[in-house]
């Protein structure tokens, strides 16, 4: 009897695994639902425990509080001058945009979520947010921490959504390296600085170049800062990430409904009546 039961249980476990291997999306949806059921129930206990743990971890930084405070003040003073410069630039930029009649994408807004849980193991890098399908979250949207890209949504439950961080081994983000305009893929490898893959011409890329998302392939928005180029001792190009992964607490999920594609030829423009005679290559795209 016990043998039989054991055999049945083993077969079920094996079946679950094979089902996952064959039809991964379905099982992953099921995983998202399970997570959605269980983890929010733990929230009431998780918040105070996390707070306490962080309090103890902060203990060492309390010791250098005064020094840090002074540094922050001087930093703030420098920032004031930068702010003035930025304001002037913003006005100038607005005037130029107005002259050019550029329409910025008005649909790029964001939803802020609180980090409920992390992946729970050192092998995976992901976090669970307390916003989900109920809040209109869609798989594939970008998540930022205010400075840089943190990851993309993968797995949405009713009340929760999982963010696969750019450092995770399964994360692949299409990116552009500025100013050279080279396209590449930022492929996570479970280290703090993901390597740059599929780069056409590495000679054009210098350390310190900015890496931004290219928005290739649908729902991922373009122009989100990922980080700066650096190299590891082996000479491989890596990205020094702009986002601060040390303590993720609040994340912004960027709403994005796909970028407009120019799929037809110039007739689209000509039919508008204005008939601008411009080469198609430099046709203005609304983003």
């Amino acid at each position, binding site marked *: 009897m016990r043998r039989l039961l054991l055999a049945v249980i083993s077969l079920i*476990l094996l079946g679950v695994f094979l089902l996952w291997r064959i039809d991964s999306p379905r099982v992953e949806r099921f995983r998202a639902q399970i*997570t959605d059921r269980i983890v929010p129930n733990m929230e009431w206990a998780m918040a105070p425990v996390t707070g306490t743990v962080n309090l103890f971890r902060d203990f060492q930084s309390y010791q250098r509080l005064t020094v840090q405070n002074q540094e922050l003040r001087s930093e703030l003073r420098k920032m004031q001058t930068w702010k003035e410069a930025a304001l002037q630039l913003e006005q100038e930029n607005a005037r130029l945009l107005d002259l050019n009649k550029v329409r910025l994408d008005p649909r790029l807004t964001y939803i802020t979520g609180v980090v409920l*849980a992390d992946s729970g193991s050192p*092998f995976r890098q992901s976090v669970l947010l307390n916003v989900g399908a109920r809040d209109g979250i869609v798989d594939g949207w970008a998540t930022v921490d205010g400075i840089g890209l943190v990851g993309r949504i993968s797995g949405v439950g009713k009340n929760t959504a999982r963010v696969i961080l750019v450092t995770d*081994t399964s994360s692949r983000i299409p990116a552009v390296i500025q100013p050279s305009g080279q396209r590449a893929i930022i492929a996570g490898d479970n280290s*703090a600085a993901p390597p740059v893959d599929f780069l056409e011409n590495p000679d054009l890329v210098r*350390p310190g170049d900015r890496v931004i998302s290219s928005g290739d392939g649908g729902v991922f928005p373009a122009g989100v800062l990922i980080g700066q180029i650096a190299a590891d001792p082996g000479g491989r190009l890596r990205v020094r990430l702009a986002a601060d992964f040390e*303590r*993720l607490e609040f994340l912004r999920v960027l709403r994005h409904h796909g970028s407009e594609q120019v799929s037809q030829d110039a007739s689209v423009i000509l039919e508008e009546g204005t008939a601008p005679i411009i080469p198609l290559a430099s046709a203005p795209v609304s983003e």
Partner: protein
Amino acid sequence: MMDELSPLRLWTMRAAFLVLTVVLLFFHLLPIETQPVAFLAPELTPPLVSIDPAEARLRSLLDQGSDRFWVAPDLLIAFAFAWSVRKPDYVPALLLATAFLLNDFLLQRPPGLWALLALIACENLKLRGRTLRDSTFGAEWLAASAWLVVIMLANRIVLTLLMVPPPQWTLSLIELGVTALFYPVVVFVTHTLMGVRKSTPGDLDRLGGR
């Protein structure tokens, strides 16, 4: 003290194992480890200070000095082993399978595989429990560690065969080592705090046989 073998005690301890699973999961899922393990991070060149001093200063200010150096042991499997050797009745196969499968789902592992392997290991330890009970702790520790190695290797082999990228070698080995090192602690806790002890030759089992 409650009768060691009463049904009430039996079911209380089964429930206790489920609670233990949830508590361990809870501490795994606390959102305090959101960065990769620091010792796997490559040293980046050139240093940020030489390209962008302002950014470097800002980062050092924002740095909270809590790099992740710690790979947590897999306590669930250690407890499952310890309980399986001591009191197989407290951890029936169905309970173990449920606990492991829940872990697989919530900890982002390929669901089912790890659970299956861990279950096989536990069942084997239960079978060998009678002999392990009579021998020293060293033998038990060795058996548990051996099973940890077997599970890890089998897991990797199956994943590789099915073209699923297996977990990183270094991390797997570190986790394995830490879990094996923590096994005596787990056994100590099991024995003293939870009162799950090896049955002595005088005890009768539930059905009244020897």
